[in-house]
Structures are given as structure tokens and as C-alpha cells.
């Protein structure tokens, strides 16, 4: 159900009226980007595709799949810090360099950008709040830190875009697109935060003794603390 909804979201971002309008309008481009890079990955992750695959595949293929998921490159790529960098870094490159105008002249670049946004959106979401079994899931503190940094990067970029729309985008269009990015991003981000902390909450239930407070110290990832002026 979630998986299908995710596919519909991704599809709506790639083809149809929104995608057509995205060629000329930055605001429509941003709608497509939110669908493809944020909402669709969340829904796809909640659909637990790996669990489904492992149940549906013959045993030998299932074993191959788990072996593949356990290999070093896959483990590295699905680490939240790497996924967060690829996700937020990719956006900064897209909107602050000449990739954005290039994207509208070259079909290949266009396809690559879309694939990047969807794939890394999925990997990041899965690394933060994945429901599939993940033996290497990072501690909640790291995941929270990455989420806060990525959300911050997203909101800084949207403000920056408000002031500096990409080449070929009118001021008004750039501004409405940037605000859509900011507020639309917030909605998905808050869902991610709730999912992540809900995971922390339920993992504490099995303990019979109260946990030695993980909370009082603010997350000591450098970026997150320093961001609080």
C-alpha cells in the first residue's frame, strides 16, 4: 500500500502535468522534487521493500540479496552520514552550479538528476527510519544529528534560493518555489522526526530498568550544537 503510493508519488514527479510544467516553472519543478525526493522515498521505505523481496524471492536469491546488502560498499552508502551528504550535497550542487540550467537542455543530465534525487532520498530515509531489518543501523543519536543537519541544510538552501534563483528562473517564480521547498520540506521532515523518535521510544519499552538518561546532553555532533547560537 505504502509502496504503491510511493510509486504513484514518484511517477507524478516524473511524468504527467507536474513534470511537464516543471520544464518551464521553478515552482512546479520544486513540487516534483518534493514528491520525488522526499514524499516518495518515505512511502517507499514504509512499504518495507526488502522484507517483501526476502519473503517473495526463492531462498537462493534471498541469500544473494542479503549478501549484497551486507557488502562493504552498500553498508558505507547506507550510512546516514554518507547518505545525508549525498542528499544535501546533491541539492546544493544542483541549485548553486550550472547543473540546473544544464538539466533542462540535456535529457541525460535530467534523468541522472532525477535518479540521484530519488535514490539518495530513499537511501537516506531508509538509513534514518527504515522499517526493513537493518543489522547495522546507526545509533539514534547519530541519526538524529544527521536529520537535524540535513533539515538545516534544506532550509538554508531554500532561503538562499529565495535570494538567488537559479539561472533562467524569474524572481517571483524562484521565491514561490523556495517557499514551497521550505514549508513542504518541513511537513515531510516532521514526519521523519516523529518516526525516528518513535523508534527510540518503542526500543526503550523492553527495558525493565530506567535508561541512564540519554537525553540531558544535547547531541554532540559538532554541527548540531554549534547551530544553536
Amino acid at each position, binding site marked *: 500500500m505504502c509502496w504503491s503510493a510511493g510509486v504513484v508519488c514518484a511517477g507524478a514527479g516524473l511524468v504527467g502535468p507536474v513534470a511537464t510544467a516543471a520544464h518551464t516553472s521553478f515552482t512546479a519543478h520544486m513540487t516534483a522534487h518534493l514528491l520525488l525526493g522526499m514524499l516518495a522515498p518515505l512511502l517507499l521505505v514504509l512499504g518495507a521493500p526488502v522484507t517483501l523481496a526476502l519473503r517473495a524471492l526463492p531462498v537462493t536469491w534471498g541469500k544473494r540479496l542479503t549478501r549484497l546488502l551486507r557488502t562493504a560498499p552498500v553498508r558505507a552508502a547506507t550510512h546516514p552520514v554518507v547518505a545525508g551528504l549525498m542528499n544535501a550535497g546533491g541539492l546544493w550542487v544542483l541549485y548553486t552550479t550550472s547543473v540546473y540550467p544544464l538539466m533542462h537542455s540535456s535529457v541525460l543530465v535530467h534523468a541522472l538528476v532525477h535518479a540521484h534525487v530519488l535514490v539518495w532520498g530513499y537511501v537516506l530515509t531508509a538509513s534514518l527510519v527504515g522499517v526493513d531489518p537493518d543489522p547495522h543501523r546507526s545509533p539514534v543519536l547519530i541519526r538524529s544529528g544527521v536529520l537535524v543537519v540535513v533539515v*538545516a541544510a534544506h532550509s538554508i538552501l531554500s532561503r538562499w534560493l529565495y535570494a538567488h534563483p537559479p539561472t533562467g528562473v524569474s524572481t517571483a517564480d524562484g521565491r514561490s518555489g523556495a517557499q514551497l521547498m521550505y514549508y513542504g520540506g518541513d511537513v515531510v521532515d516532521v514526519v521523519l*522526526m516523529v518516526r525516528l523518535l518513535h523508534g527510540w521510544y518503542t526500543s526503550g519499552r523492553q527495558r525493565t530498568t530506567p535508561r541512564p538518561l540519554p*537525553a540531558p546532553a544535547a547531541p554532540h555532533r559538532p554541527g548540531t550544537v554549534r547551530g544553536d547560537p
Partner: protein
Amino acid sequence: MSDVEDTGPPLGRRTDLSGFLFGCGVAASVIDLFVFHLALQWHHFYDLSTTRVALTADGFFHAFGWFITVWGLFLLADVRRRTQVVWTRWAGAVVTGVGFFQLVDGVVSHKLLGIHQIRYGVDLLPYDMTWIGSAVLLLVVGLLVRRRAAPARASS
């Protein structure tokens, strides 16, 4: 699951932390967004006057605001499933949090960093005075309420 000894200082402190984080978060994300951006429209999305450092700071402020709102509520849920929540203590901590955030916002963001102003095209002094004054008032009231609800803190 909660035992009697669970009601000791750690959960009391967790109640404080939950309320404080939730208060700060609500002031940062909910009050700011719904009251000042959407209802009054005094704040703008971005007034284009901000330096890069301030913009970065504001981005983290924003991300933290939502995160601590959600975190504070889950901490409250955590205290609740272990023991009975002392609601006045929590409420005191929430008001303290709101006051604390408004004070930091009014002094650091508005005045020191100049991220944005309370309102544009008006004499700012009365606005700043009201903002900072009400923040201090909330902070003091919150601390008093919290202290009345948990007088045993000194002994714990």
C-alpha cells in the same frame, strides 16, 4: 513496568527536560510560524538582509525547533509510561522553555545577529521591549511554577 523508585530525580529531571524542550520548540516552530508568519504576517519568510552566518544559524535554529518539539513530547510519553507525570512541574518547564526561547530569539536573533526584526516599517523599540519583557516574565513565572511543583529538588 515502572517501579516505585522510578519516580526519583531522574524522571523528575526528565519531566523538566521534556517540558523545557517542548516549550522552546513550540516557541521556535509553532508560535513563530502560526502567529508571526501566518496570522500577523509581521515576520517575512526571508528579509534578504541577513548575513551568511546568520542564515546558517537560522537554518539550524529552524531544524532544531521542530526536532526538540517532537523529542520533548516523546520524553513526556516516556515519563508517563514509567510513572505519573507531575503536570504542574511539566507545565512550569514548558512556560520556562517558551520564555527562554523568546528571550534568546529576541536578544540573539533579532538584535545581535539581525536575522530578522519583529515587524517592518515601524518604530521597533516598543516591540522589542514587549518581546523581551514578556519573555523574561514567562521565564520567571515558569521557574516559579516549576519550583512550587517540585520543592524537593534541593533535597534530591
